[in-house]
C-alpha cells in the first residue's frame, strides 16, 4: 500500500526568501512523525502546506497518490484534520457543537447534522474522554480539556491524516502526557504528524522524527538517529546532553547551561 501522504521537493516562500526548501517525506498509515526544530525553522508553515492553507510554489503534495491541488476544500478536510495549538471562539459554543463542526465536510448544502453525525461526534468525545464536557461552553474549559475537545473534533472529521501543531505547548506535564497517549492510541487507523517543542516527548512517542533547520530537513530517521547531542546542539544552537530514557529506551535531552555546567550556584 502506498503512503497516505507524500511531499515531493516542496518549496514555499511568503516573500523573497524560501521558508521551506526542497522538502520531501512520506507518511504511512500507523505512523507518527514528529517534526522538531527551532522557532522559525518552518514547522507550522509545513503543516499549513500539507493541508493546503498555503500553496507550495514548487513541488507537490500527494494525497493517496493524487495531487492535493486537484481536491476540493471539503475533500481535503475528509482526508486531513488539523489540531491547532490553540483555538479561539469569539462566541461561547458548547464543546459538543465544536466537535460536531468536524462533520462539516460531509454535510453538503443542507445545514443540519444527521443522526450519524451525532453518533460519530459522541464516539470521538468518548475516545478523548471529553464526553462529560459535551454541554459545557468551550470558554469554560481548561487548556487540556480544550485541546482534547479539538482532538475529538479532528477525529469527527474521520480523516486518515491528523496534523497537530504544538498541541501541548500550554499544558502541564500531566496533560501533555494525556494528549500524547491519546495520540499514540489512534495510529491503528491513521497517520499523524505532530509538531512539538518537547523533544524528549516527541522522541518517546513518535516512530520517526524530522529535524528542520531553516526550512530544510537537517536530519530524518528514528528518534535515536535524529535526537543526538550533535544534531540538536547544532540546529538549536544550544548545548544539550542526550542520554537514554531508562523506561522507554528513547533519547532524552538535558539542556546544559553555558555558564555553570548546569549546576545551581551554591550559596
Amino acid at each position, binding site marked *: 500500500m502506498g503512503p497516505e501522504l507524500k511531499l515531493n521537493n516542496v518549496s514555499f516562500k511568503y516573500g523573497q526568501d524560501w521558508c521551506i526548501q526542497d522538502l520531501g517525506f512520506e507518511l504511512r498509515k500507523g505512523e507518527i512523525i514528529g517534526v522538531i526544530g527551532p522557532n522559525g525553522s518552518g514547522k507550522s508553515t509545513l503543516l*499549513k502546506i500539507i*493541508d*493546503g*492553507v498555503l500553496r507550495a510554489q514548487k513541488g507537490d503534495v500527494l494525497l493517496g497518490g493524487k495531487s492535493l491541488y486537484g481536491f476540493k*476544500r*471539503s*475533500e*481535503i*478536510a*475528509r482526508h*486531513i*484534520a*488539523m489540531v*491547532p495549538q490553540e*483555538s*479561539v*471562539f*469569539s*462566541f*461561547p*459554543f*458548547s464543546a*459538543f*457543537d*465544536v466537535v*460536531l*463542526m*468536524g462533520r*462539516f*465536510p460531509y*454535510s453538503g*448544502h443542507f*445545514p*443540519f*447534522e444527521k*443522526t450519524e453525525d*451525532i453518533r460519530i461526534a*459522541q464516539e470521538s468525545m468518548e475516545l478523548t474522554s471529553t464526553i462529560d464536557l*459535551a*454541554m459545557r461552553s*468551550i*470558554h469554560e474549559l481548561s487548556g487540556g480539556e480544550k485541546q482534547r475537545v479539538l482532538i475529538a473534533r479532528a477525529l469527527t*472529521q474521520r480523516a486518515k491524516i491528523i496534523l497537530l501543531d504544538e498541541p501541548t505547548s500550554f499544558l502541564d506535564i500531566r496533560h501533555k502526557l494525556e494528549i500524547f497517549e491519546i495520540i499514540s492510541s489512534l495510529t491503528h487507523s491513521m497517520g499523524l504528524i505532530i509538531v512539538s517543542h518537547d523533544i524528549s516527548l516527541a522522541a518517546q512517542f513518535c516512530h520517526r522524527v524530522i529535524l528542520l533547520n531553516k526550512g530544510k530537513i537537517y536530519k530524518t530517521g528514528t528518534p535515536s538517529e535524529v535526537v543526538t547531542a550533535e544534531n540538536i546542539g547544532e540546529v538549536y544552537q544550544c548545548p544539550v546532553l542526550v542520554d537514554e530514557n531508562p523506561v522507554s529506551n528513547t533519547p532524552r535531552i538535558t539542556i546544559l547551561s553555558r555558564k555553570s555546567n548546569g549546576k545551581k550556584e551554591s550559596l
Partner: protein
Amino acid sequence: MSRNKYYRITPLRVINLAVALSAVLVVVGFVSLCMGPANIHVKQVLMLFSDSGSIDQTTWMILFKIRLPRILLAGMVGFSLSIGGVVFQALLRNPLAEPFILGVSSGSAVGAIAGIFLGLSIDLGVPFLSFMGALFTIFLVMGIGRRQGGLESSTLLLTGVIVNAFFTAIIMFFISTTSDTRLHSILFWLYGDLSQSRYSQLSISFPIIIVVSAIVYVFSRHLNLLVGGEDSALQMGVDVELVKWLLFLGISLITGIAISFSGIIGFVGLIVPHLMRMFIGPDHRLLIPASALGGASFMIAADTLARTIISPSELPVGVVTAFLGAPFFIYLLKQRGSRWVQN
C-alpha cells in the same frame, strides 16, 4: 445513551423559533398600528379583519396610507440591520461589529445621497448606490484594520470612528451646500427617520431582502465555523474566501437598501443579535432567523416609541435606538474588555 441527551439544532427547532418570533412580530405590528396621535380604537382596527364592520375614510387613510407602510418599512430596516450585525460579528470575529459602528451605515448613506444628487430613481438607483457605498466602506475598513485572524476590537473601533467622522462630514457638506428638497433633512440621514415611508419602497426591496437573507441563511453553518478562525474553517472544508465575499456582498446589499430608505440608524445590529444570543446561544442557524425577526419587532417598537413619546411631534427613530444602544455598547465593552477574541 439517549440520542436526545445532546442539544442539537434541527429544522424543526428553527421552524418553531421562527413561528414564535413571527407571532411576536405580528402582535408588535398590530399594537403599533393602533398607536399614534390620531386616536383610533383597537376595536376599529380589529373590525378591518372581520367583514362586518365598515370604517370611515379618514381612519382608513391613517391606518393604510400612513401607519402601515411605516410599520412595514421599520420591520424591513430592523430585519436587515440585525442580519448585518450578526454576519459582521461572525466574519470579523468581533462581538462589537455592526454596520453603524463599522462606518458601513454612513458610507452607504453617502452613496444614497450621491444617488439622489444624480437624480437616480429613489426606488432603484439610490438603493443601488447606497449598496455600493456600503461595499466600498467594508473594503476600506478591512483594508485599514486587517490583522491576522480578524479585526481586533481597538482597531475596529478606531477605524469605525474615523470612517464615520469622514462620511458624516461628507453628508453634512452635501446637505449644507444644497437646497435640493429631495435630500430631506440632515436629521433624516444622521439620526434615521422612517416617516418618509411609501409602499413603492417596499415592492422592489422586500423581495431582494428576502432572497438575500435566504442565501445568507444557507451559509449559517459556515458562519459557525468561521467564528473559530478563518484557517480553522478552511481546514474543515469551508471555501473561506468565496463565503466571505459572498456574505459581505449580501449584507452590503440589504443594509444599503435599508439605509437608503431610513437614514443611519445605529446600534440595532448590535443590541438585537446580542440579546438573541443570550437566549438561544451562538449557533447561526437559530441566531440569523431570531435576529432578523427580533430586529424587525425591535425596530417597529422603537419607531412606535419615536412617534408617540412626545406626540404630536416626533423623534427621529435613531435617537431612540442610540438612547438604548449606547449604554448597552458600553456595558458590553466594560464587561469583557477589548480582549474579545482571546475568549
